[in-house]
């Protein structure tokens, strides 16, 4: 440890820590706790005032259409998460593996891979909505140009393809994050370890399997948990590509868009009121929290004796 003495708290220390602690506590932690509280309230005004106990949750888990919408968002979110995880982890790792080899221009590729991640999800969503437009979209025109007009499809209109389309756009955008993390992991493997493996006669494939993959296991965990948190609160992509109605017919509804619509829309547009909205966000919190606990259990607690 850097300092050997055990210090007592001195006024200046409190003064140094307090601003960060206060802003963080009041505007990030407290609102989440307070939202949990509001999920037990109901009311027609903007702020729910009537205490109703578990009534909102009862509705959410048992009544039409709340239960259907919630389960729909849940299964959609799982599907979305699985697609993004697979694409980003496998493809992202592969790209990272390539750019860490001695290939011409690997620095350029590294840089470019992260470019879409810097853009706003909103812009990317709007852009791909235009690209996939059935009447003018460039994607269908490209398919025609290469003789694949047979597979042209109403991508964003068919409930079967709409959600995967959104998931692939999100993967496209955030691929750079996986590439960056995996690249960092591979770069951090000491050269001697790789050298030793080569001397033992390992071919590139064996090197990958026995040295690189074990070394980046924790990073797979980080990338996956970040994807999970991002996907279970994802809203912008649905807003941009399928509107707050999660077209077609809620086929692209995720928890983020459900939360938004339930909370801020009028009943005419599928709104449920603030109390129900708070219940949805509390459920999201429980899901994210559980996932983080599972991740900590598998990736951090086990064999992490170096701290």
């Amino acid at each position, binding site marked *: 440890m850097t300092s050997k003495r055990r210090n007592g708290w001195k006024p200046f220390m409190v003064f140094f820590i307090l601003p960060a602690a206060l802003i963080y506590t009041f505007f990030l932690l407290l609102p989440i706790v307070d939202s949990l509280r509001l999920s037990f309230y109901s009311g027609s005004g903007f702020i729910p005032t009537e205490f109703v106990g578990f009534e909102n949750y009862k509705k959410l888990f048992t009544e*039409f259409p709340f239960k259907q919408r919630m389960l729909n968002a849940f299964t959609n979110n799982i599907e979305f998460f699985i697609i993004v995880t697979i694409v980003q982890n496998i493809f992202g790792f592969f790209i990272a593996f390539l750019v860490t080899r001695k290939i011409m221009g690997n620095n350029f590729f590294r840089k470019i891979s992260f470019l879409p991640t810097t853009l706003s999800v909103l812009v990317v969503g709007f852009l791909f909505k235009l690209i996939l437009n059935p*009447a003018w979209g460039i994607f269908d025109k490209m398919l025609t140009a290469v003789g694949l007009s047979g597979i042209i499809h109403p991508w964003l*209109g068919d409930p079967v393809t709409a959600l995967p389309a959104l998931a692939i756009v999100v993967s496209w955008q955030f691929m750079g994050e996986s590439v960056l993390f995996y690249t960092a992991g591979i770069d951090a493997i000491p050269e001697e370890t790789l050298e030793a493996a080569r001397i033992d006669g390992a071919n590139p494939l064996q090197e990958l399997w026995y040295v690189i993959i074990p070394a980046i296991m924790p990073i797979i965990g980080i990338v996956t948990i970040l994807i999970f948190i991002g996907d279970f609160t994802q809203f912008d992509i649905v807003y941009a590509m399928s*509107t707050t109605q999660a077209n077609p017919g809620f086929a692209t509804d995720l928890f983020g868009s459900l939360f938004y619509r339930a909370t801020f829309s009028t009943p*005419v547009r*599928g709104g449920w009121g603030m109390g129900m909205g708070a219940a949805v966000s509390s459920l999201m919190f429980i899901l994210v929290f559980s996932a983080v606990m599972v991740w900590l259990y598998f990736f951090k607690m086990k064999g992490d004796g170096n701290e």
Partner: protein
Amino acid sequence: MKKALLIFIALALVFTFTVSAGGQKDGGSAAVSQEKVKIVFTSWRTEDIERMNRINAVYMKAHPNVEVVFQPINDNEYDAQMKAALETGTGADVIFLRSYDTGRSVFEGGSLAVLNDEIPSLEAFPDAAKKAWSTEDGKIYGVPFAGVTHGVYYHKDVFKKYGLSEPETWDEFIKVAQTLKDNGEVVFAQGALDDWTCYEVVFSGVTTNWWGGEKSRQALMAGKQKLTDANWLSAFKAEDQLQQFFPKGYEALDYVSMQQMFGTGQAAMFMGGSWELGVFEDLGSGSEDIGWFPPPLVHKGDRMQYCFHVDAGIGLNKNSKHYQEALDYVRWTSTPEFAELFMNELPGFFAYTPGDYNLSNPLAKEMIAVASDADLTVRAVWEKMSAQSPSGNSLMGEALTKMWKDEFTPEQAAAYVQDGLATWYKPFQK
């Protein structure tokens, strides 16, 4: 590293300077306009900014001490933000209100002025319009601003090419569509992605004669009819019939692409609202290129059932800091002068203000002419049936898109909405 940091700091400084310089300029101009009374007018129609500014300029010219600022909020966020602002005393002075329950809930929040005594001329407005922004005991809280209507647009040259004329009945309508289809034309610029168009425009506005207009709507609202009854079901079936005439990829065609497709002349017909006249004009299809006909009748000689929907009213914030000036402005919105101004700026929006108007757009004239010899109604499940969740509006939209994608039969679609409403709508629970 060091160099990058230097650049970063330099950029930061430049930005900070430009920002603070800009800030000062703002402060200066604010001081000048301080003498004027500023009235904020909010709405959900962001597309009208330029047009509303031109209308307000006329008012401001006559009232040089007042500055009317039109500040719309995005349609989706409008209701929540407007309500939140009103409840916390930061609301606009003049407020666009949706008709019936949505507007009513704003009044019940306690922030709207009762206008009966403030604007006596409201007395002369048509009852159907007043009803949409008043309580059962007759307290009016919104000036009926505008109504919209629905029908079918078509390209004149395409109809001419095949010797087609405007259909009067549904059978003729289908025959026209069939002829166009047989000749390889794109018949309708219609899609199933934005589900509200399936319900608000096509079901409410184009199959009106099938479900039967105002009488049926009242009976439905009172629980005396069900959506699975023959007349309502026939409307679902009629709507289902249209699917065969939709363009390739219609499942993914959103509202904007539909407008673009028709406005740029890539489809022969479009089932739409009167408010789209301006959009088509901007896209190069003016009233000399396109024609319009009202919802087709079931049998020749039937009386026309016409969906003339109450769209927007204008409310007054009773806690406004400049109540008198805001009231004067709202009063102006109830005058024929204002009505004529906006009807010509926003063709396809029709005033309820009594008076004789000279409309510049010939199609708008046609649309209003139909109303004089028809029974008027509003959208089928809008009043009362969309006040709670699941609302008639969202159930209808969902059921109809599913029907258009063959996931539901017309019977299933009707039953889905009926059962969904029965979860909370009392008259349906009997």
